[in-house]
């Protein structure tokens, strides 16, 4: 009798949501290609809208002659700019590889372009977190 009660009370705690590979893959893919973290989980429309929105912001920023930040250890604002840009994932990597985003001081709107690209990266961080929440079942 005492043995039975001991058995029932010493049950190992079961996690609410089992960890799955999707919880790792979706955020990683979502970072690399904006919206892909949702698409890989069959949220096609959401993923498509995220891809278009974040992609358009980033590309418009480039076309406005915005400046892209590289890894640096200097000014705090430059470091924050780098973190923001880095959020765009594949878009940022391609931009660096093609040596785009050098920034033109000739255009007054170039500063807007710089901010567009930073915000695109930051919005992608939010999209990545959302893809993770879907993967662990916290959100539908």
């Amino acid at each position, binding site marked *: 009798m005492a043995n039975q009660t001991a058995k029932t009370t010493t049950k190992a705690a079961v996690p609410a949501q089992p960890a799955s590979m999707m919880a790792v893959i979706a955020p990683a893919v979502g970072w690399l290609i904006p919206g892909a973290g949702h698409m890989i989980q069959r949220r096609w429309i959401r993923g498509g809208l995220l891809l278009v*929105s*974040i992609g358009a*912001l980033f590309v418009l920023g480039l076309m406005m002659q915005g400046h892209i930040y590289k890894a640096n250890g200097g000014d705090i604002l430059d470091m924050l700019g780098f973190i923001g840009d880095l959020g765009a994932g594949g878009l940022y990597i391609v931009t660096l590889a093609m040596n785009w985003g050098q920034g*033109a001081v000739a*255009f007054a*709107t170039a500063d*807007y372009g710089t901010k567009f690209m930073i915000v695109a990266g930051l*919005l992608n961080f939010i999209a990545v977190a959302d893809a993770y929440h879907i993967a662990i079942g916290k959100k539908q």
Partner: protein
Amino acid sequence: MTIQLSHFSAAFVFALFASIVFGITHRETTRDMIRYGLYCFAMFLGGVFVAGWAMWLVRR
């Protein structure tokens, strides 16, 4: 290829795309996503007009 947007068109484009992302990521159901996206868009553009008029008043 370069593009030059005016202050307002840049703010409009920014508000549009940021609102879409906010709507999708901050709400659960489709209906709530649309409503929140529209709310964010209105707030962004409303903020542009309020800030614009505030700067006009400060300048006078």
